[in-house]
């Protein structure tokens, strides 16, 4: 049944294919024309990840959730499908960005051997993962908000939540600098180098899991 729900959302999202091609072309040009060779994964992942959430708006316009609840599926599967789509879109966006960067850099290096672009694969993948993490955080906040308040209000709620998160991080940074709290940067950097990737992935898993639980609890009690 989740396959049917996914098909419905993917058919709805098909209208974005022209926009996606334009974004890919834009990112390709940006890689060639600027030094921002690591830009593509983050930009494409951000756009594809956020586009996937527009399926909520499609559902709202057609009031389709009420109808979907009459089909042989249930609320759990409906919530699950939204997460599968969001996570899939984010990973797809990140991978597409990585592949685009590798392709463009190699083609350009072949065409212009005198003007070699040095591509650091480690930095590229780290940047892509950073981008995927940020989008995951946004999605983890936004999906329950949209289930609770609807697509339009949910977006506003997400910006408020995001503002609170930035304010808290900013506040911590302000306190650390104001009270001259010594942080061993070398040790921190070493720690991040060793465990950063695992922590990032673990954090994403936890974020999505908690977000899914909240979203399901909201949707289970929601009247359509």
């Amino acid at each position, binding site marked *: 049944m989740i396959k*049917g729900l996914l*098909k*419905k959302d993917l058919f709805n999202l098909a209208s974005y294919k022209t926009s996606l091609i334009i974004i890919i072309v834009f990112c390709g040009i940006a890689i060639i024309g600027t030094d921002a060779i690591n830009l593509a994964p983050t930009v494409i992942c951000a756009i594809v990840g956020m586009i996937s959430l527009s399926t909520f708006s499609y559902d709202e316009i*057609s009031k*389709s959730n009420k109808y979907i609840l*009459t*089909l042989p599926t249930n609320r759990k599967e409906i919530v699950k499908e939204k997460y599968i789509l969001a996570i899939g879109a984010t990973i797809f966006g990140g991978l597409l960005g990585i592949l685009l960067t590798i392709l463009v850099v190699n083609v350009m290096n072949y065409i212009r051997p005198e003007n070699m672009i040095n591509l650091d694969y480690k930095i590229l993948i780290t940047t892509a993962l950073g981008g995927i993490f940020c989008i995951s955080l946004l999605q983890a906040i936004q999906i329950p908000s949209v289930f609770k308040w609807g697509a339009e209000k949910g977006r506003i709620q997400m910006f408020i939540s995001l503002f609170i998160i930035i304010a808290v991080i900013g506040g911590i940074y302000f306190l650390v600098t104001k009270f001259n709290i010594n942080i061993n940067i070398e040790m921190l950097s070493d720690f991040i180098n060793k465990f950063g990737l695992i922590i990032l992935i673990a954090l994403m898993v936890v974020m999505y899991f908690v977000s899914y639980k909240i979203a399901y609890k909201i949707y289970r009690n929601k009247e359509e």
Partner: protein
Amino acid sequence: MENSIELQNVSKKYKDFELKTISFNVPQGCIVGLIGENGAGKTTTIKSILNITKSEGTIKIFGKDSVKNEKEIKEETGVVLDDSFLSEYLTAKQVNSIMKEFYKTWNEEKYISLLKQFNLPTDKLIKDFSSGMKMKLKIATAISHNPKLLILDEPTSGLDPVVRNEILDIFRKYIEEDETRSILLSTHITTDLEHISDYIVFIEKGKMIFNLPTDELLENYGIIKCSKEDFTRLNKKDYIAYKKGKYQYEVLTSNKNNIRNRYNITTIDKPSIEDIMLLYIKGEK
């Protein structure tokens, strides 16, 4: 006779509306019309049956608990909702591709032949369909997995009489094909029900007013048209409601033969379901 749907004391409370202890059955092989004005509680009843909204009371479909056996029941149920469908941004062809993932018994050939029969384009976005075309697509989608039960919420509202008639024909054929099939049809256009329904359930302000076989309703109910003098002779127990007109009284009775015999009043009209509903709602008690 087995029942496809059994409702017992179904209640639902909202801030400004309450559905109060609704009980009725939809027997196999029958079309049951659920009538009432807008906001009477028809859609809430249907949403409760389909477990879209949580309500109190007992709901059994095909003899099974509607909540515990939700998926199994929905496999054998086709639903048409007036204001909701998969998405306006899909084509009929894409609907086919989606629906076969939902129903094990989805019949692609039947769906395509229904689209042809209804003259529906397969590659046009649903949002560009007329209201009649949209409704026909919803019906084609609802019956293409050969469901045992059809639940239809206002399937004819906003449609012109020609399309309405076509749609009613589809329902008639659907029920004639298999005697174990049933339809629950909610509508405020009561004329649609006079020729096709077997039972009428009337809901008003969240309360069930009656649940009667259509024939019995149309045969036994009557509208007495009488003078003030005749009206004052009537015992309150012998009529349901009345309306004072410019020149005469219109009095609704559930037993017109009794009125004829007891009061010797001969001007008793055969009412339509709409007349009955209107006098119940607007008449004085």
